[in-house]
C-alpha cells in the first residue's frame, strides 16, 4: 500500500467525520447551509493501517484520539501566489512616476 491508497500505523494522516447531519443543524441557518452536514477534518498519527475511505483512529498533536474516514496520507498544501492579476501590474510603475513628477514640481 502506498501513500495514494492508504496508510500504515504511525503515518501522519487526515481523517474526515460528520459532526452534525443536516437534520441536526442549528436553527435559523440560511437554507444552503442547513441542507449540508457540518463536516470536520483533523490530522494525526494513524493508530492502525487503513485504506483511503476506511474508518481509522488517529492520535492528534495534543494526544486526543479521533475516529474518522481516512482522506489523505502526509496531507500537504498547494496554495500559491499565482500569476499577477493584470489589474495590478501597472500600479507600481504609474505611482512611482506620479511621485517623481510631484517632487519635480515641488523642486525637490
Amino acid at each position, binding site marked *: 500500500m502506498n501513500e495514494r491508497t492508504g496508510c500504515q500505523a504511525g503515518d501522519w494522516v487526515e481523517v474526515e467525520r460528520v*459532526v*452534525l*447531519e443536516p*437534520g*441536526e*443543524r*442549528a*436553527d435559523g*441557518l*440560511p437554507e*444552503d*447551509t442547513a441542507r*449540508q*452536514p*457540518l*463536516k*470536520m*477534518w*483533523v*490530522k*494525526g498519527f494513524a493508530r492502525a493501517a487503513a485504506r483511503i475511505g476506511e474508518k481509522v483512529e488517529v492520535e*492528534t*498533536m*495534543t*494526544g*486526543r484520539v479521533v475516529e474518522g474516514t481516512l482522506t489523505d496520507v502526509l496531507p500537504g*498544501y498547494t*496554495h*500559491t*501566489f*499565482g*500569476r*499577477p*492579476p493584470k*489589474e*495590478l501590474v501597472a*500600479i*507600481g510603475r504609474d*505611482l*512611482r512616476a*506620479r*511621485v517623481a*513628477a*510631484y*517632487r519635480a514640481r515641488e523642486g525637490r
Partner: protein
Amino acid sequence: MGGTSAAVLARRGAIMKAALGFDYAAFERSPIAFDYEGLMASHGLTIEDVRAIQRAAGVGDTPLIELRNLTDLVRSYAPPGFGARIFVKDEAANLAGSFKDRRASVSIHVAKERGYDGVIAATSGNYGAAVASQAARAGLKCIIVQEAFDSRHVGQPEIIEKSRLCEAFGAEVVQLTVGPELFVVMLELLEETGYFAASLYSPFGVAGIETLGFEIAEQMRALTGAPPSHVVVTHAGGGNTTGTARGLAKAGARETQVVSASVDLSGLHMASDTDFNRKSFTTGHTGFGVPFATWPDRADVPRNAARALRYMDRYVTVSQGEVFYATEALCKLEGLERGPSGNTALAAAMALARDLPREATVVVQETEYTGAGKHHWSQIAFARANGIEVRLGDPAESVPGTSIVVPEWPEQLSVRDVDLERLRRSYVRNALAHAPEGYTPTEDDVRFLAEDAHTTPEAVEGIIRELAQG
C-alpha cells in the same frame, strides 16, 4: 439543533467558567448593565506588567515607519495645504506575523500561570497562528478550531495558509465547514480536554492590545513631538479598536481620533455556505464589524471585553478593490509587502489623508504578514475562479460577492462613513432584546448603555422611547 448540541449548550456557563478560571457573574449589575471597568481590571495587570509579559514572549516593540512616498503620492493630488503625513505600525514584525501575538501572549501567560495543560481558540484568522506560536514557546498544547471550507471542501487560500501556519507551530487544527455550530465543537473540546479558553474577547486578550496603542503614542511623540492626530484601525470583532483606543488613552493621547475601518461586504451572509467563498477578505470586514459593534456579547464569552462602539470616533468602509490597490502601492512605493486584510486601514488612511491638513499625522495601526495564499494575488485569482468579476474602474461600482473593481487612479480611493447613530440605535435595541421580556431599564442601565454606545443618557432615553413606540 440536535440533542447532543443542545445538551452541550446547556452546560455552556459551567464549561466557560472552568475554561477561563473566573466567573463573569461577579461583574453583572442587571440584565443589561455590567461593571466593564471592573472586568477589565480583574486580571490585576498594569500596562507595564503586560509589556513585560510581551517582551519575555518576544512580542511587541514593533517599528513605526513613516511612509514618505505614499504621503507624497497623496499630496500630489490633495488640495493645496492638504495631505497628512502617513505612518504605519509594522505589526507583521511580531513572531507569528500580526498584532494578534499581543492578544495571545497575555492569554497564554495566564493559562500557564494557572496550570492549564493547553489552550483552545476558535478562529480562522491570524489569531490562530499567534496562539499556536505562543503556546509552542510556553510548552502548552494547542487546539485551533477553524471554519475553513465550504461544503465542496474548498477553502479561501487565506484561511488555508493560516491552517498551515498553525500546524507549523505544532497546533492541532480542527477544520470545519461553514456554520455557527463551530461554537458547540469548541465547547465540547474544552470539556473533553480541560484546556484554557484563549478567547479573542476575554479581558486578557484585549489587555494585550492596549500596548499597541500605548507604543503608537510613545513612538509618535519621539518622531514628531506629539501623539498622532488620527489612528486608523482595521475593525472586525472590536478588539483592535478597543485595545488600541484604551492604550492611547493610557498614554495620555486623549486628543487622538480613532477611526475604525472595515472592508464593505454588505449583502453577503456570514453563515451561508455559498457566500463563504464569494468574499475576498476573511477578516477586517463589515460581516464582523457591524454585528460585533451593535451586539458585542454575541462572542464566545459571556461578556465581550471588546466593545468598539465605546471607542470609535468614526467608522468608515472601503471596498475590496481599494484595499488590493493600497496593498500594491505599499509594496511598490514603500518596499513593504504586507496584508492584504491588514491593509484595510491603509486604504482608508490614504483616502482620509487627502482631506486632512499637512500638519495632521495619520497612523495605520497594523500590518500583517503575507505569503502564498495570504496574498493579494492569490485572493484575486481565487475570486476569479469563483466567478467574481475583477476589473479596473470606479470602486464605487463594486458589488460584494459579485465584482471587485480595482481603482484606475489613487484619486478614486475614498471612504464611506457608517452612520454611528444608526449603530447606537441598533445596539440599544439588541441590549433590550436580550433582557427578559417586560424588563424596564433602570437609571443605572441607561448610564451603562450611554457609556457602552459612546453617547449621552438623554440620547439613550430617546432611543428607548422611539423603540417603545415601534
